[in-house]
Every structure is written in C-alpha cells, then in structure tokens.
C-alpha cells in the first residue's frame, strides 16, 4: 500500500540546489507526488516541501537518508509524523455561462472556495485546503467542463511554536 508523507526540507539558498534535489529523486527512482520551494524567514535558507509516496518505512528512510546526504540539505523533518497543518492551493478554470454560473457559485460556497475571475465564458475558482478537499472539489466540478487546473503541491507547518529547524 502506497502511503504519502510530507517532508519539509531546509536547504541552502544557493544556485544549483534544486538540480541536486531533483537529480537525486530521479536517480534513486523515488516517487514524488508534489514538490514546491520558496523563501523562508531566513534569507540563506530555502524550504522545499516534498510529498513522497512510498510502499514501506524502509523506502521512506531511503528518501530521507539519501536526501540528507546532499551537502546543501540542512535539515529534513517528516511533518506527517508530527502534529501539523497541511495546505495546498488550487486554481480551477471552468467553462461557465449564465445557465450554470449560479450552480457553480453554490459549489464554491459549499467548499468555502472563492471565485477570483469571471468572464462571459468561464470562472476561475480558488481553493486552499487539504489535498482531500481539493480532490473533492475537482471531482464535483468534473461534471462541468474544466478547462485548466493549477495546483501548488502541499506545504505544511507543525503545530505549536517550535520550527522545523529546531526539531
């Protein structure tokens, strides 16, 4: 059974780091669901959020220990193993006109999503939430014509005051 884990990977904010991380993932044939990167509270540190899909604890250990060997990786924390909040942002462009716009607004309200752009032919829906919620709205919207989807991949923070770098 494949299981997903969200890893917070703190790396040096230097050119080439993403090459090192993505190169390792491909070389070791790790299964990655999503990956995203961004600046952090420290200028010299980038945070990479990786959702990895593995079959066993052993495989997960390999992902963590192999990534940990990269010189520019400072710290890795498996946020799925601590109490944490996980979020992903999605934007969905759906074909919509007068006849079905009201229905779409109902769906948006049920999911507490929002409409961020409207044209005579379409709407763009934005939703932030856990991956299961995002999968949910996509499933419901699949009854309409989805023109385009953009997802950020999941990010997470642990609950409580302790940051990942001190874990």
């Amino acid at each position, binding site marked *: 059974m494949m299981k997903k884990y969200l890893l917070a990977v703190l790396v*040096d904010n230097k050119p080439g780091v993403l090459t090192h991380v993505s*190169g390792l993932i491909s070389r070791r044939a790790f299964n990655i669901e999503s990956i995203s990167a961004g600046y952090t509270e420290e200028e010299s540190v980038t945070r990479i959020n990786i959702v990895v899909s593995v079959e066993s604890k052993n495989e997960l250990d390999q992902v963590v220990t192999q990534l940990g060997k*990269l010189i520019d990786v400072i710290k890795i924390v498996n946020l799925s193993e601590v109490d944490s909040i996980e979020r992903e942002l999605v934007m969905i462009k759906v074909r919509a006109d007068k006849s079905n716009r009201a229905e779409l607004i109902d769906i948006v309200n049920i999911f507490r999503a929002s409409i961020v752009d409207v044209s005579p032919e379409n709407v763009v829906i934005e939703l932030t939430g856990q991956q299961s919620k995002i999968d949910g709205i996509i499933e419901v919207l699949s009854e309409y014509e989805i023109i385009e989807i953009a997802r950020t991949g999941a990010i997470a923070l642990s609950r409580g005051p302790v940051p990942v770098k001190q874990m």
Partner: protein
Amino acid sequence: MMNGAQAVLESLKKEGVDVVFGYPGGAVLTLYDAVYKLKFPHILTRHEQGAIHAADGYARATGKVGVVFATSGPGATNLITGIATACTDSVPLVCITGQVANPYIGKDSFQEADIFGITTPITKHNYLVKDVKELPRVLKEAFFIARTGRKGPVVIDVAKDVFDAKIDYKYPEKVNLRGYSGVYDGNEEEIAAAVEAVRKAERPLIFAGGGIISSDTAAEVQKLAKKLGVPVTSTLLGLGAVPADTEGFLGFAGMHGSYAANMAIQKCDLLLCIGMRFSDRVTGRVDGFAPKAKIVHFELDRAEINKNVAADLQVLGDLRWTLPRFNKKLTATKEKFAEKFKGWKNEVLKMHKEHPFSFVEQGDAIKPGALIRKISELADKDTIAVTDVGQHQMWAAQFFDVFKPRHFLTSGGQGTMGYGLPAAMGAKIGAPDSRVVLFTGDGSIMMNCQEFATIADNNIDVKVVIVHNCILGMVGQWQRLFYNHHYSQSELKGKTDFVKLAEAMGLKGYRLTKKEELETVLPKIMAEKGPALIDVLIPEEEDVLPMVPGGKRLDQMVLGGSK
C-alpha cells in the same frame, strides 16, 4: 592581487596537492598558463579519461585527493566515466573543469556542455563558479567534502573569465557548511549491542569492505580478527584489509568469490559487516543472503543501512571511531573468544582447503590462474596490483595475494573497462617506491591504450600484463553459459600486435605463449626496471569459477577447477 587561475593553484598548494593529471583546452588556457608560470607538477595524459582514472589510481594508492584539470564541453564530458567510477567506489577527487565564459553560458556556445547538470548524479557534490570571489571558498569546501566522511568526487566547473579575473586572494581557514560537518561519531550503545551479539554468537564471520581501506582502519580489523579468532572474508574492494596470509582469511566473497567464503556467509550465525554496501555482486539473491545470521552493519553512511540488506544491528559512525571502541569493549569482556570460535573457524578453513581457488592445467597452455599466482609469488608484499575489468579482474582477485590496504586497485562498483592502465600509472606516481603490476585483458587495454604514450614518455614503471584470450572474456563466459555459445560481437580475433603497440609507443613489449615461460622468461621481465607490456596468450574458453549465477543464492555456486 592575482588572477583566478593562480588562485586555483595557490589553493591546491595549500591543500597539499603534489601533482595534477589533466589535458589543456580553450576554456582552461589561463589555468594552464598559471601551471606554466608556477611550474606546477602536472602529468599530461593522452585523453581526459586517462587523466581522471590516473587521479583515481593515485587517490586509491595514497589516500590523498586526486586532482584533474580538463577543458569545457568534450574535455569535461570525457571525465564522466571516471567520475562515476570514483563515485561508486568512494574515491576522493577534485575535478576542475573549464566552462565557457559567463556571457556565453546558456547560448549553446562552442564547447559548451552543462557539466554541473551532467555530473550532479555522479558526484558527492559539485559547483559552477561564475564569480572569482567564490573560488577560494569553493576550493576549500571541495577538498574538505572530497576527503571527509564517505569520500567521493567533487567537480568544480569554472567559467573561463573567472580564471582571468583579478582577486585579492585569501584562502579560508575553515569551511562553513550548515548541512555537512564531515564528522561521524558513533554511539556507545550500538557498540555495546554489537559486543553482546558477539558474546551470544557461536559462528561469527567478519566481512571486510572497502570502507576499511578508505578510512585506513585495516589495523583495527586485523586486531579484531585476531582477538575473535574467527574466519574473515572481504568484498572485492575490501581486499587488503587483512593480509592474504592471515589465518582464517578465506579470500573475497560474492559472485566469483571463494566457496568457503560464500558458504561461511550462508552458515554463520553472526555476520560482522564492516564498511560495505551489500552490492548485488556480493549478496547473490538478496532474500537468501546469510539466512541464519544476525547481521551487524558497521557503517558511516546512514543511507547504506537497510538499503539492500536489512541489518539486525547497526553500528553507525566513522570506523575510526567505532572499531577501536568495539575492540576495547570486546577485550573488557575478558572472554576467550578465539578458543570459543576455534571449532567453527577450523570447519570453515577445512572447506577452504577442500575448495580453494583453482584451475586445471591444460598441456602447454598458460592458465590465467597459474600466471597470476606466479606473478604474485614474484611480487614483494609492497607490490600494488591494479586491474581492468572482466575475467582477468576476477582471476587477479582470486590468485593475487594482497598483503596491505591500498594495494589492490580495481573498479568495483562500475566495472569500468579502461580503468586499469591510467589507474596503474596514477598509483605508481603516488607510490613511487612500490612496484605496480596491472592485470588487464585484450578487451580492456584497448579502451585506454593511448596512455602507453604517457607511461613511456614519463618512464612510469608499470608492468602491464595482458591476459589475452582473444575474446571479451566475461561477456563470452555469459554467452557460453546462458546464450548457447553465441559469441555475439565478443570475439577479438584481430590483427593487433600488442608487442608492436608497446614498442611503437616507446616501451618494451614481450609475449608469452607457453607454460614453461612463466618460469624461464617471466621472472626476468618482472625484475627489469622501467615500464613493460607482457602479452600473455591464454586459452579462449576459460571460465571464471566458482560462479554464483544471477538470481541464485551464494550457496548455489557453480564450482569448477580441481587440483
């Protein structure tokens, strides 16, 4: 003030580099101008691949960091095989490659290739230097990373204009890497657990890996073997961890390892695996590997634990940290281990005596086993044996007695044909007081035979023994065993005359064809000073045995030979 090229050489001096292997070209002209001005010791090989394998042989023989220069594009891509070879076998190298100048990067310029991208999966770490101010820090880090922890190659790709740029040079005293300390202290509790496992064991076996060689801890392993009085086997890269004449040493284990070594692995109840990574060539079928044994894995690299074989106990940490403490704790138990394990050791030694590495004589023909055994007899204990890849490599591992660490140099993990000749050259340069013998094949030697020119021109005293069977021997063996004798593209019945090749390139060449010449001619050639090629014709259809066929367990060996 100096320029970037001079800053590179100053840094190399500060790192104690006494020789560079390399090949010039457009992007490194300024670097080579600094070599010229500073008279920096440099060996010009005849191919970049020769340079990198030479640096690898130098590094394996000395324990120091091997250094390579190459130009951009094809110069740097010619290093790739050698970088991968060094990476898999954890050999410390620093490769400095020229890149096109900053304004030309990304424009598909002449001799531009993305060396940073290409070398990412086959280096311990790599850099692209676009600003001269970064050079000193990067060089300092590169040497530190290459030679600490699990050693490995580091590539520094330097934009051409960086070599020309002026710098107020100051070499940093310390490295400052947040994600890498290079320190791998162990854990007393894990060592204590390993000691307990030894106390409870009845049939322990020491399995010595290449990590022992690269961490210079062979003395501790020898102490351990003596204290416990248990049999010892090794991986291919672990040869030399204990002297060949150690009582209880079974030779190497694995696909072409000794019968006793493989059987001991299958029968032991405790396997002390030290500095090894459980390559598929060593384990055979993984789920049938050492089925009765509690596996204790002494290892620096956390990622190796449970990667291929699940360890029952891990002893993480630098062997220089863990092994002395392990020995000390074992002594403190006051147990008479050697007495306790004597019966088991004798049982294994009996197997080894009944099934040693052997070969069947065949009339007048020179058998590879006889050839290598004879050279081993003629060699002193300080002789460094280097191999290429294929059948001769396995015969060398079987029949050449290795007495010291860093005295058996071979491309283990990658199995790189063409490694041998340049590596032997680098080994001799690094260890000029040791004799160096290369065992190669008529296939492998052609892959870097241009380096005969380097050897001859620099009078590098290497004896090159071509185990010549007119076929890619290992490919042929598999075709014979598993592909109905279809020698598809493996036969080498060509017109090449290796003796003439040697002579044409400026070294002596000899040919041996009859068994008696091992006694009459060979000793004289081996005693001569200076480089020589010895072309030794052997029968074509000789298998390397024993052999564990792919997908079989270690105890399902095909045996062969007999006395």
